[in-house]
């Protein structure tokens, strides 16, 4: 019983991380129907941004987590936002009216570019890098199970930020503009909405969440590598598709489902941890067979 509870807790923490990344996929898709495959790399780059911020801090600040930690988040988010904005401006905007496949291939190219850029130019990025130990240590004990404090923080941040984002999109003026652009960019333009601004803002929101995820990933798992964006990006993309790409709630719920499948399948299904990925994709296929639009997605509209 305690093993089951512990695995559920592990799954929730993994889901929280995936959710933060999946939101970026789903928002961008919702607005411009682009699967931004480079989003996983934005997450990876932010992790290195956080690490670089820490490395550049003066020695006395490195010793006080209360200062170093927020600065690392700030640095990581800043790097993620700059990368996302530059990527949107130079890689995707010129292709705004091109056939849908063109920006998709571009996204794959940007992904490879970012990965190689970090590998070549970040010092020692050719192998795993340890993350600084400024995060709270120890674990939260809940009866028979224990969750590291970094894991707890990850869940709190993930759930908190998704609720904030959902509220912003539903309540604010800008959020309304985003929804309007998603529904019909041409009419939105006629109503005085600047689609470029809306799109950039969407990328920025995605990048901020990816930035938080990137730094937390380092804190939770203690080391980072250039492959982390690809692997977690695939999970996040899968989560977005499972939940219904374009839906905020769907992406978050999809992410937690994937986190739970991964840990529970590793524990209880035949093949053990070796086959945990298999079960994730089996569930994805089953969901898509019976609900092609995903759990919370709307059926695809044909645009005029």
């Amino acid at each position, binding site marked *: 019983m305690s093993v089951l509870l512990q695995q559920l807790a592990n799954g929730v923490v993994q889901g929280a991380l995936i959710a933060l990344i999946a939101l970026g996929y789903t928002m961008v898709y919702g607005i411009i129907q682009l699967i931004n495959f480079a989003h996983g790399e934005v997450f990876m780059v932010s992790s290195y941004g956080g690490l670089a911020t820490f490395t550049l801090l003066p020695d006395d600040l490195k010793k006080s987590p209360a200062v170093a930690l927020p600065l690392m988040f700030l640095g990581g988010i800043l790097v993620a936002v700059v990368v996302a904005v530059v990527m949107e401006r130079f890689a995707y905007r010129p292709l705004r009216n091109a056939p849908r496949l063109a920006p998709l291939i571009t996204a794959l190219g940007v992904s490879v570019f970012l990965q190689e850029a970090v590998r070549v130019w970040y010092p020692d990025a050719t192998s795993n890098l340890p993350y600084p130990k400024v995060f709270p240590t120890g674990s939260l004990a809940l009866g028979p199970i224990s969750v590291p404090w970094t894991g707890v923080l990850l869940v709190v941040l993930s759930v908190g930020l998704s609720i904030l984002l959902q509220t912003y999109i539903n309540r604010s003026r800008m959020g309304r503009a985003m929804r309007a652009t998603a529904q019909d960019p041409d009419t939105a333009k006629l109503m005085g909405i600047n689609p470029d601004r809306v799109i950039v803002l969407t990328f920025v929101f995605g990048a901020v969440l990816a930035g938080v995820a990137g730094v937390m990933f380092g804190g939770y798992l203690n080391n980072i590598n250039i492959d982390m964006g690809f692997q977690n990006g695939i999970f996040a993309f899968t989560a977005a598709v499972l939940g219904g790409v374009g839906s905020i709630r769907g992406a978050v719920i999809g992410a937690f489902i994937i986190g739970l499948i991964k840990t529970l399948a*590793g524990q209880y299904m035949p093949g053990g*941890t070796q086959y945990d990925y298999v079960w994730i994709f089996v569930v994805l296929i089953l969901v898509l067979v019976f609900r092609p639009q995903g759990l919370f997605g709307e059926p695809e509209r044909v645009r005029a």
Partner: protein
Amino acid sequence: MRKHLVKSAAIVGATLLVVAACGTNDKTEAGGTGGSCDTSKGTLTVGVVAPLSGNLSALGIGIKQSAELAVDEANKKCTVKGYKLQVSAQDDEANPAKGAQAATKLSTDPNVVGVVGTLNSSVAQTVQPILRDKKIPQVSPANTNPSLTRGNDFLTAPKRQFDNYFRVCATDDLQGPFAANYMVEKAGKKKIAIITDGKTYGKGLADEFAKQVAKKGGTIVGTETVGEKDTDFSGVVSKIKGLAPEAVYYGGEYPAAGPLSKQMKDNGLNVPLMGGDGIYDQKFIDLGGKEGDLATSVGAPTESLETAKAFVTAYKEKFGKEDFAAYGAFSYDAANAIIGGLAKTVEGGEWGDAKRDAMLTNVGAYSGSGATGEVKFDQYGDSTNKVLTVYQVTGTKWDDVQTGEYTG
């Protein structure tokens, strides 16, 4: 105008990438000046195939630089009469497909006399046949999987697999049981869980370990496999935690083992993690390896061997720091075996394809005193040096706790 800007930015970006790529690919380096030696017959190449980028690059670069050191010294001492030697290092990224490309590239060069490498047993499997077809001797500093030399039935019906393949390190059918003996008899841990990355090296090593644990009266309480690129091990840790092991044996390499050890502790499974030569690296500790973790590695501790001291001094002099990593001394010996074989082969003659058979024989018959002790090959191409060492993490570094030969 606007379009122009985007286009030129794209071109600049692409150019930068190409420049960067060329910068990392160009790894051919001249091995010293040759000094006053007679090098009238030209230049011959010793190839190196190892992971020079990626997670295992710390080990790969140690292999490459140690081979360069051996070639450098040979050039200074005029070991190969009439020829100058150089190193051509190819990156295999620890990936069997990339290793095959690297081997193909080397094998098409008529001046390549031998290859030092690979690091990974899985990469060796694709490199061996390519080099055999061109009769190029391959001496591995680090492949420990026994089937590479003796086939799948290496215990019951050993059979030489490749007549061009040699290695200077002890194999996993010795290393695994050696670790098991230490674990069960010395450390007194009877309930052990096994985790592997499912690759040729990791799985092979763990299998040998498990057999010996059973023989010594211990129990394997569970076996799990993790992905090579996994980063979050909380699922597998919780699973084996439920089995209450007294220790965990990991078959794989340090990029996964370090974080795994840390996550075991974070998730309340504070028992030692033990692994093979693949985790015996400083990086293991940097990435989360904890106090009391254990590793076996091939050979005696480099610092304790009289023969190794000269190597360490020379390496430090040439490269400034002692980053030869776990296999540096082995790579140095492997390169010297090739150089020694070559010196005999071209004595009083010229290098050419007709000499390749003689070269294989001469490398096989090579015998010398190297940085890891005596360097000699048996009838399968394995090293006759079967010394192994157990190391333990103490503070922030590895300390050797037991050195010896596996005797059953």
